[in-house]
């Protein structure tokens, strides 16, 4: 794969790394006897600093940021790890988190995680973790007896009650957003039923089960005469889980289930392991569970001060983990289940003499476990219910050999453990809760951009090359951000879909205008012929220039301005309003809201995609009034439900004024293909506008999610009665309505609970929207029309709904 970093040399191929484990503290307050950091072959921790110095954090963050920029990584996952990261204390932790967010977040979406034993977690730390949007995984091996088998203090005391106290803290509504899940290390001497029940009692968003670390030199403990004790033990938990209707994602099982979205994990599957570890002294290391193999096994001899990520990524030990099937031994390559097993966890393959060129030491267990999983297929996947022999390749979860699966974030566990979660899990869980965090919004925006780019490439294939295409691709290689800025304009995709789906439509080519806009954003010197639409030159995201009597205009881009020649008339358009105005130029007006420049989109003709008339371009007073109301409404959303405010900040970029209609004065709309924009009528007050913004943005987010996953059986023809309309709705329409109303219920609930003179109207709205949503959610769950993912999503919605008290206020 050629990459924007330009590292196309086949001898040194580009290997983008998106996951980083930062060993911020190398000591631990527990002394677990199954810990790979302290109890295994590698003992390098003894000579390393206890804490990662601020200068090392900065150097690591700078390396990661430059790598993310060079490879245009949409998301970077950073896991704080140890030892025990909470030994940093609140001040030390804050320093690390602030440095990472400040250095990394401007250029990419930063997914921050931490794996902890939980012993030190308190309210102050929880507040800090929520403030910096850190997702926390906690290590717990099950019930007290199971946990006490290994997870003890050095003095031999139990850590069980402290860990349970930490989990209770994370369950509290104000901290729940930082609760990522539980990581449990398997010990077949424990009772699987007790372990399963104990894990579920903690209401984790997800669970991961980890096989204890072992190699061929030091095989795992097995009871005499039992061939596959680990498969048997896990099989029992799998049975309980299936019987219970898979109430919580269990990563290992999901990853082994064919057709299940989410892809592989570090422990199973062929997904490339794009992961690097930074030790407390700044050394780049390979996956740290390699410590079980031999002393110094994870080392690379490189460090963050002298070596960029690209160099560490080319280390043979890192590189071989990215080549999928080709990196496995002959026996695994010939194995019929290799695409699902992937040879097991890399360190489990180690044997003195043959190195890692072996199957997993758990091979018989892995084979048996896969057979167990296959014996209990998913009950409600549409592909299983309806035969679809022609299903296209690449369905989420479809992982034929040689094609790695979805790039799941692979946060590491507490040292000695590794917590693995897929992007799918996180995306669905985050959005189903009602809001979606900045990470989720970032993923939606990036995948929407990817779809638009694929459609644009299709347009190029359909229409052939052009000067505009040449310019756009050249700019994409040299100034990708400028191209992305124009391709994320909400109305590019609707245009592409219309043109591509209905060839022959008499319509102008938008490509030259897109290329010109990218050119001026990149401060490139370029010239193109751009079609005139009606009587105007329309430049998406910038504005519209009235150009009478010409079919095309020659546009030259120079830093900060455009030179436009149409017929014999030549005009210069400065893009900075402060540099003066040009006759006939109508710039796109923007409102500053919460650090975002929200566009009032009343210029681009492509905005007419809402199935109802859009308003003509507003005059200055009307635009200014709308801008003020939008800014105020935005503040109201932040006041009412800050998480919805953050979700608006993270993704809503344009508002389209709808034409007034006295018969329906309060209207709003979302177009599935115009991600990042909503449409509204002129509204009397900011509080009403706030509700509509939240409502429509829910449709926007869910629409983008539905582009990625089928939550409803695609062949569904069922209609369900709903409380908010007289006519029964298709299942996807019910889901959309319920998702929007869930958020609206939250807004009214917050208003009812606020200290207002008369809370009764808000209380009435809160109850109504909550009841509508509950009825719709129950109808969806009872419909049998949801896919497995859809059911999980809707169950989460119901969980969020239960968080709204019966009697608001």
């Amino acid at each position, binding site marked *: *794969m050629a*990459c924007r970093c330009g590292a196309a040399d086949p001898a040194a191929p580009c290997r983008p790394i998106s996951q980083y484990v930062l060993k911020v503290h190398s000591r631990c307050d527990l002394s677990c006897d199954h810990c790979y950091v302290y109890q295994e072959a590698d003992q390098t921790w003894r000579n390393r600093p206890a804490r990662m110095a601020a200068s090392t954090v900065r150097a690591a963050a700078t390396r990661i940021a430059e790598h993310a920029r060079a*490879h245009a990584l949409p998301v970077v996952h950073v896991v704080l790890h140890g030892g025990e990261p909470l030994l940093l204390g609140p001040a030390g932790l804050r320093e690390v988190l602030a440095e990472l967010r400040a250095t990394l977040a401007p250029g990419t979406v930063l997914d921050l995680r931490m794996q902890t034993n939980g012993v030190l977690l308190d309210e102050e730390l929880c507040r800090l973790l929520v403030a910096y949007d850190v997702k926390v995984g906690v290590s717990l091996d099950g019930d007290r007896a199971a946990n006490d088998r290994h997870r003890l203090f050095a003095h031999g005391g139990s850590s069980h009650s402290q860990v349970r106290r930490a989990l209770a803290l994370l369950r509290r509504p104000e901290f729940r957003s930082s609760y990522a899940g539980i990581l449990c290390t398997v010990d077949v001497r424990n009772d699987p039923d007790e372990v399963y029940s104990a894990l579920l009692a903690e209401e984790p968003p997800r669970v991961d089960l980890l096989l204890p670390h072992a190699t061929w030199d030091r095989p795992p403990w097995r009871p005499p005469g039992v061939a596959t004790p680990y498969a048997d033990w896990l099989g029992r938990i799998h049975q309980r889980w299936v019987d219970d209707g898979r109430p919580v994602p269990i990563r290992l099982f999901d990853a082994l289930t064919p057709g299940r979205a989410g*892809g592989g994990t570090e422990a199973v599957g062929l997904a490339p392991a794009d992961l690097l570890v930074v030790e407390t002294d700044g050394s780049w290391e390979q996956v740290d569970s390699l410590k079980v193999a031999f002393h110094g096994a994870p080392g690379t001899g490189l460090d963050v001060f002298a070596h960029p990520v690209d160099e560490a990524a080319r280390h043979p030990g890192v590189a071989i983990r990215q080549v999928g099937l080709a990196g496995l031994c002959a026996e695994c390559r010939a194995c019929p289940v290799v695409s699902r097993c992937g040879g097991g966890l890399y360190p489990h393959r180690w044997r003195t003499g043959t190195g890692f060129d072996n199957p997993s030491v758990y091979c018989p267990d892995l084979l048996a476990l896969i057979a167990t999983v296959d014996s209990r297929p998913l009950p409600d996947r549409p592909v299983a219910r309806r035969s679809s022999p022609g299903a296209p390749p*690449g369905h989420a*979860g479809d992982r034929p050999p040689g094609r790695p699966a979805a*790039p799941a974030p692979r946060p590491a566990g507490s040292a000695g453990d590794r917590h693995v979660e897929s992007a799918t899990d996180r995306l669905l869980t985050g959005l189903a809760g009602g809001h979606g965090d900045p990470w989720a919004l970032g993923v939606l925006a990036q995948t929407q951009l990817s779809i638009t780019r694929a459609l644009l490439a299709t347009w190029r294939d359909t229409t052939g090359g052009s000067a505009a295409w040449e310019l756009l691709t050249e700019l994409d290689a040299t100034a990708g951000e400028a191209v992305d800025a124009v391709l994320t304009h909400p109305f590019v995709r609707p245009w592409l879909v219309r043109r591509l789906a209905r060839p022959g439509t008499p319509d102008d080519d938008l490509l030259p205008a897109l290329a010109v806009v990218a050119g001026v954003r990149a401060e490139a010197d370029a010239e193109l012929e751009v079609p005139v639409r009606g009587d105007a030159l329309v430049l998406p995201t910038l504005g519209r220039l009235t150009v009478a009597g010409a079919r095309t205009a020659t546009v030259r881009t120079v830093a900060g301005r455009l030179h436009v020649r149409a017929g014999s008339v030549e005009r210069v358009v400065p893009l900075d309003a402060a540099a003066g105005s040009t006759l006939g130029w109508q710039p796109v007006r923007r409102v500053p809201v919460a650090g975002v420049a929200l566009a009032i989109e009343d210029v681009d003709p492509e905005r007419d995609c809402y199935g109802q008339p859009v308003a003509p371009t507003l005059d200055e007073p009307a635009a200014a009034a709308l801008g003020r109301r939008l800014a105020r409404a935005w503040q109201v959303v932040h006041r009412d439900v800050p998480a919805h405010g953050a979700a608006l900040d993270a993704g809503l970029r344009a508002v389209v004024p709808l034409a007034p209609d006295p018969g329906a004065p309060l209207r709003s709309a979302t177009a599935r293909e115009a991600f990042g924009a909503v449409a509204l009528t002129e509204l009397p007050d900011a509080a009403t506008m706030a509700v509509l913004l939240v409502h429509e943005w829910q449709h926007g987010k869910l629409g983008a999610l539905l582009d990625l*996953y089928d939550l409803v059986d695609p062949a569904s023809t069922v209609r369900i009665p709903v409380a908010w309309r007289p006519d029964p709705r298709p299942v996807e329409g019910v889901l959309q309505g319920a998702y929007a109303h869930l958020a609206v219920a939250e807004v009214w609930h917050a208003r009812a609970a606020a200290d207002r003179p008369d809370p009764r109207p808000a209380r009435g709205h809160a109850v109504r929207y909550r009841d509508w949503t509950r009825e719709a959610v129950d109808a969806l769950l009872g419909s049998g029309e949801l896919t497995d993912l859809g059911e999980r999503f809707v169950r989460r919605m119901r969980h969020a709904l239960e968080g709204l008290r019966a009697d608001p206020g």
Partner: protein
Amino acid sequence: MDQTPPRHSPPSLEVLTRSLRTPLGQVATEHPDTLALVRRRFLAGRSAQPGTVPVAAFNSSI
């Protein structure tokens, strides 16, 4: 949403992320499968609505 025609299976997160890392000019040659998936998922069936804007819109009123 009511007007949305039956859709084909979606491209995975991984597929979309990978193609995003590829220069625009090489997306078609390096990710033909992605293009095919995107075409099937997001274009198929759109042309069956002559005379309308083939964009599924969600109109809400309060």
